[in-house]
């Protein structure tokens, strides 16, 4: 009686662990990209993105005021100011915790203590709010004295990266044009194959004609043809018939490469729709076209949606087909994937720019996925047949 329905399988925990693993595998890089895209170069190089949400303690090297700010009081040169807000300081929100006057002991003094420099002629006091008082017997140097300040800085986020990527005028960093180019490629390259495949799938699933089985076999055979095989011949064909490189060419290429899977998926789904429903529609006087539009299409919505998601995602992320069929020497039709590749070359060290570019490019797939994922799950057939 171990196998009765409803009893939990011993592998449930394995399933749960796998799910948790997959979620983590997907979630952490995505989150990391998102967080990194709001950070500055310095923040990215000094700490990991997972620390970005918390206040961090960091030690910075600052300088007191120099000769210009010094005032003479009781025979001493005195310089006063605020380390937090002066040039190079970490800003008002930070909280000083310690300071030092020598690079060997950078956190030697508590806030409020008076530090004495090694020559004994100079002293430095720092208050809680960052205000300092520096005294010296001799006239201070032009550039002031070195101070090492350890302060807790609150979490900070910046939108500068997005400004650079989306709105900056410079052509190299600006992804806005590439974003719209990608959309121009993706939307028709998703819709065209779905429309064609839906018609084909209905015919292959529910219409009797000679050679139907052969056609289905052909579609399955096309599934396993790698698209790289067709790149050069197809491009030659496009150039030969005058389509050339451009949006039309890339739409046609994506359509052709997407169709076998689309037809296969949709046909398999449609063939599983209850025969009774279709026969009933026939008896009720519907033509094949009406059956297709009024019955099959609405019922196939989950399959259409799931294929649409797939096709959208891989045309969005595609680089190869775009490079071959779309992007020409002028670069005016560049897509985002290509732009990111170029950014890797020109801004290889600027991780914040790369992270922002990457996040801009994955944002639309994320939205599409979350908006459509319920259609992947929902069965529309509930209630049709007992």
């Amino acid at each position, binding site marked *: 009686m171990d196998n009765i329905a409803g009893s939990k399988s011993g592998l449930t925990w394995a399933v749960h662990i796998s799910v948790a693993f997959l979620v983590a595998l997907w979630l952490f890089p995505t989150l990391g990209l998102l967080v990194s895209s709001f950070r500055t170069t310095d923040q990215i190089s000094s700490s990991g993105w997972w620390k970005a949400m918390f206040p961090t303690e960091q030690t910075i090297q600052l300088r007191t005021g120099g000769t210009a700010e010094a005032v003479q009081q009781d025979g001493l040169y005195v310089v006063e100011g605020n380390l937090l807000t002066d040039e190079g300081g970490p800003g008002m929100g930070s909280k000083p915790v310690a300071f030092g006057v020598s690079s060997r002991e950078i956190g030697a003094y508590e806030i409020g203590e008076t530090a004495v420099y090694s020559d004994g002629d100079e002293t430095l006091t720092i208050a809680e709010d960052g205000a300092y008082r520096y005294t010296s017997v001799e006239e201070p140097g032009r550039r002031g004295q070195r101070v090492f300040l350890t302060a807790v800085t609150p979490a900070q986020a910046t939108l500068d990266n997005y400004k650079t990527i989306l709105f900056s005028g410079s052509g190299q960093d600006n992804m806005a044009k590439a974003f719209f180019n990608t959309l121009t490629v993706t939307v028709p390259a998703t819709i065209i194959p779905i429309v064609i495949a839906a018609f084909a799938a209905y015919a292959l699933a529910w219409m009797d004609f000679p050679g139907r089985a052969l056609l289905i076999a052909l579609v399955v055979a096309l599934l396993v043809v790698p698209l790289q095989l067709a790149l050069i011949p197809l491009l030659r064909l496009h150039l030969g018939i005058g389509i050339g490189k451009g949006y039309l060419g890339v739409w046609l290429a994506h359509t052709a490469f997407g169709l076998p899977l689309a037809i296969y998926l949709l046909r398999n789904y449609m063939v599983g729709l*209850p025969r*009774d429903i279709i*026969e*009933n529609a026939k008896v009720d006087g519907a033509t094949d076209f009406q059956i297709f539009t009024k019955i099959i299409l609405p019922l196939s919505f989950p399959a259409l949606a799931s294929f649409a998601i797939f096709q959208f995602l891989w045309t969005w992320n595609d680089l190869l087909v775009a490079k071959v069929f779309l992007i020409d020497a002028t670069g005016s039709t560049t897509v985002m994937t290509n732009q990111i590749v170029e950014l890797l070359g020109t801004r290889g060290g600027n991780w914040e720019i790369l992270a922002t570019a990457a996040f801009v490019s994955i944002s639309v797939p994320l939205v599409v996925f979350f908006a459509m994922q319920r259609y992947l799950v929902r069965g529309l057939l509930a*209630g049709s047949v007992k």
Partner: protein
Amino acid sequence: MANLALRSLTKSYGSTEVLHGISLDVSDGEFVVFVGPSGCGKSTTLRLIAGLEETTSGIIEIGDREVNNLEPKERDIAMVFQNYAIYPHMSVKKNIAFGLRSSKMPKADKEKRIQEVAGILDMTELLDRKPSQLSGGQRQRVAIGRAMVRDPAVFLFDEPLSNLDAQLRTQMRLEIKRLHQRVGSTIIFVTHDQVEAMTMADRIVIMKDGHIQQVGTPSEVYHKPANTFVARFIGAPSMNLLPASMSGEMICLTGGRQVEVTLKELPSGKDVLVGVRPDDLLPDDVNPVISGKVTVLEPLGPETLIYVETASGEIIAEADGRSPPRVGDTVNLGAGPEHLHVFDAKTGEALT
């Protein structure tokens, strides 16, 4: 409304012939039930009438018009499927209206027609629901309503009650019968349940292996079965068939008893089968047929079924519900000569 005629209808899938020449006349307004075990060709016959399958040979006429080469929609029929085949993405109203889309009726008339049908089927308040929010019986009603709204010449029902639970089935059975009486249309109803067939039909068509075994009113097929198959198939519990042999005019049962039955024709050989329905076979000494020992009792209330071990094997008889014999008793079972059916043991054909 129209009559329906099948003339030597055959159907083959590849080289396998599944219907071997079905001929039947159904008159206008008749309720005909096709019944038989699964695989007997009853659903195939229905699908041929509907035009969902192509006939291999033979002629189908609906209202004196040959419809062999017409599409289902041109045949003026409506069909109710076993699984109801309700469009799951449409409301009940749209489901019912679907069949009216192609008709040239003005919109107001269509609306009126839908309301009328909904009224007859008592589901006016369900019109805006989705099929998933309906119970099995309600879905069944939607399917029937969808068929009714088009006012077809012939209604075809393909085992529409087999997915319902026993109580609902009884109720729907009655509703369909009432509907038929009120609307008066020609109905072809396919079922494998002989109780459904008996209770609903004007005429029953009993099929087996692609052949019609008998066509007749419920009373005819029950009281005058044409062969042993019909005798066994109709009636529950089914008819007892006792092996016997002819000796002159008399029939000798295995076990020694002799009974006298007037035969219309003589059997091909000496061996015959004597059939007697359990409800005709009572503990009775007047016309003794067979005797044996009671092994099992099945009290049903008004009567009790008794299983009796006899020289001809186990047979079922009926006893009074108030004072049945006890298990282990030896009983004499008797039946009037008019209740005995004699079949040719070789061909299975009725001889009485």
